[in-house]
């Protein structure tokens, strides 16, 4: 049994559990986009950052990946955390102004679209890889993967052709946090 605190509240966890899981279990809300209970955590969107103090240093970590530690002091809503989330959301809302979910999240942190916002409203994919992981871990079909690198990174099938592995189950549609998969789906399935 590992004891630590989240927002000064005494909580316990076990070896291998993550901060996010324990926080959610105790009803402490941490925003996430790339996290889904069905798959392994990935830490792509970084929205779930929390401030941890292990007695030596205070730092920001992705709570979906960070394992619980004895005596850890976790702050899920400190000014530092909020600041980072605002920056992340600022970039997301500018990059993907078409996504309702991101807009709502941004609004709740007081973030508005900036003058640098992208004009491509149809681009909803935040490349969190949730669909790719679900297709692999849940379905087992491995029909999609993340193609290319850097600014050209995209969710794609082999040779960008309709995938023969795709079973058209719609798991990717279900887990997609922004609704981007709706447009991709018909290109993926044969």
């Amino acid at each position, binding site marked *: 049994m590992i004891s630590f605190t989240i927002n000064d509240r005494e909580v316990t*966890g*076990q070896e*291998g*559990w*993550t901060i996010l*899981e*324990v926080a*959610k*279990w*105790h*009803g402490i*809300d941490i925003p996430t986009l790339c996290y*889904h*209970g*069905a798959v392994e955590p990935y830490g792509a969107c970084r929205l779930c950052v929390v401030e941890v103090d292990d007695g030596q240093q205070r730092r920001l970590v992705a709570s979906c990946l960070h394992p619980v530690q004895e005596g850890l002091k976790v702050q899920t809503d400190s000014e530092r955390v909020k600041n980072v989330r605002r920056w992340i959301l600022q970039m997301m809302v500018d990059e993907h102004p078409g996504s309702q979910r991101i807009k709502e999240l941004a609004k709740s942190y007081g973030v508005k679209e900036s003058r640098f916002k992208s004009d491509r409203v149809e681009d909803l994919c935040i490349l969190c890889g949730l669909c790719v992981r*679900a297709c692999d871990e*849940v*379905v*087992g*079909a491995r029909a999609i993967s993340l193609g290319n690198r850097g600014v050209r990174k995209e969710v794609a099938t082999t040779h960008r052709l309709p995938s023969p592995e*795709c*079973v*058209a*189950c*719609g*798991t990717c*549609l*279900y*887990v997609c946090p922004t*609704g981007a998969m*709706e447009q991709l*789906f*018909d290109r993926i399935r044969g």
Partner: protein
Amino acid sequence: MKNNEAKIGVFLCECGGKISSRIDLPAVGELLKYEPWAHLEISPYPCLAPGLEAMQAKVQEKGLNRILVGGCSSRVMKKKFAAALAPVGIHEYQVEMVNLKDHVAAVHEDSPQKLARKAAALLAGGMAGLRLLEPYEPVSVPFQGPVLIMGGGISGFAAARELARKGMESRLFSPARDPGQVLAQLPRTFPGSQLFSKELTELLREVFTSPLVKVLPDLPVEYVVGHVGDYRLGLRQSDGTVTEVTGSALILALDREFVPGDYEYIGGGERVCDLLEMEERLAQGEIEAGKVVFWVNSPEHGKAAQQFNAVAAWRNSLVLARNHPRVKPTVLYPANITLPLSGADLAEARGCGIALQSYAPEVHPVVQSGYLTYFSPQDHLEHELEWDNLVVSMVPGEPAAKTQELLRWLPVYSENGGRLRKTQLKLKPDQVADETIFLTGSAGELKDLNEVLRQGKKAAQGVLHLQEKAKRGALVSPVVVTIDQDLCEGCGLCTEICPCGGVEHVKPGSGPVPRHADSHLCSGGGTCAATCPYEAVKMLNNTAQQLEARLKAVLSRMQENEALGFICSWGGLGAADLAGVKGLSYPRGVYLIPVNCLGSIDPAIFSMAFVNGANSILLGGCTPTASCHYVYGVDHSWVRVNIMKKLLSLAGLERRRITMGYVDVNQPEAFVRMVESHLDGMHKLAPINRDEKTKTKLWAIHATLHRPRVRWVLGTSLRRPTEKEFPGEQVNAVDADETMLDVLREEFLASRILKAIHDQPLNPPQIAQSMDEPVKTITPMLTDMAKEGRVTIKSWEGGYPLYATGKP
């Protein structure tokens, strides 16, 4: 599952308020108070590590053997629960999920108390289904004996070699007796293969001399029966007797022959020939000096065939250039095909002086004496190519003659244009068993020789994988389908309509013997079980009885103005889940029951639902013509819905009480419209007036749908895997439908009569009176039924016979 007594643990998920803010979960617990659960709890997040830990503890503490989670989508989350609970002895089939989030909480705008009622109904249904769960003991299939390689294709030799190298025995059926004969025939299926004759000779010699490969003469196939691990192949000997060869697995190596096209219009005598003829001349070394043009023509046979020819032409020109330095070959190919040559090939072409020239496919080249005029795709100018010998393409012919003999027995179908394909099941990898029948060769898809040889090797590896699994005792299928040998009458309807080949054939002339099912080929679609006239086919833990129990539990908690909804686990369920994710909203009055495939719903389930209080039924599945994951499940269901409509109207009820819809997984909006439209239509109908007479009629509908005669006629009108079109394409749709209607009318009447005399013997006027029908309507039926023994004349009273129920 150690004991069969159900100990159900119910876990209701709050989902961080997403469910608990919309559904009054404590009220759900209260409403389920008298249901047979052993443990019920509300958990903030059952799917997260702390929740799973708590669940494991409860399973051990209370000895739970079935888990019902009221949370989100089972398609996404069930695997995680199953994996987490496996260490405490819970298997995936013992976990059931009811999607409270997307089917109730997120999509309805009613009060949390009202939604609690709906949630409780769906959960009660889940529990009723779980109670009837049967233990699933995976039984590994024995796998011994040689592999049977049939069809005579070249890929069979590659498979045999791979098997022999890995120490597995095989029986290869081939008309050839030695490598030379195989090679002599090979250009017919793979023109241009002479280039590889050295390598192929090695391959063939290894096969022919291997002690593990027995090359047997390719005798006519009389039958192929059995299942994975135990196939029996009947071969007709020249004296007419049939001998049997047994084997553990099947590899079908079928190639498609290439035949000369019609090039008489070119003329030119000896100087113009096709690829095959050229190959023969090459073999005999009859080529003189000069310019040889290989012209890839015949665009009408498709690009794949043209590419195939281009490669063949390239290979023949290579043999030419190597052996006859004075010959200048040119390959003229259409610009719209991809020349499947590597950089090394192109370099070699340059080195040997072979010209590779493309022509604009828009203009068909013109043949002149000594010249071939084509338009270049680069400069759009016509160019002339000189030739001394012109070689034209071959065209794909029919698949090997062996094919027709084998198709009769195996789940391989011939598409338009003769292309062979196996049933294409788009299911999740863990839903289907390992591949057990291997189809290789160019008869499936036109592939190059190297690719086809690779296919053979891959098939061999597949067989070895099966063998290895069997050794570990792990050759099991995720689906278990059984046929009750006592109930089965051997009519063979299941064999005929099963798209996966999951029901074994029987030897010709063996008559109506009970069938056996091969779970390894079964997709779990279940249309066979819903069709069987004698209700002998059973899919383990996906039975009509379980569905019935589930429906009864849900129906007993539904109100009169509410509808029952069946959704298939692909289109319907996917769209319904997505409606919740997207936050769409629709009226509360539809209770969604997910089923594997709509085709697995026995028609008697519909009638059972009406008997038990349903006022309307909605079915939402995939698109019948396109996207059914079980090939024809949805349109089989559609036929059953139409039968139900006919029976409803015979009983004086509205046909629209049962409707079918299709919805794509990516169209939750369409799903919402479908539900709304159905509910609108339903609200125009009054609830069924459940007086004695109507109840009797509903009961009679139910009895009618259990009658083998009705089920048989219904089953014969379903689409077969060999049929591409709907049964509506039959010669006369109206006639066929009226035949069906006649049968239904008769059997409905018979069922009503049986119901009338069920409690006490009655005479015809009394029966007629109780049924509210004229006596003359029922007397012919009574006479017939007496002949069949379904009713008996107990005694005579006042000049009238007293009828009682006879044998069932």
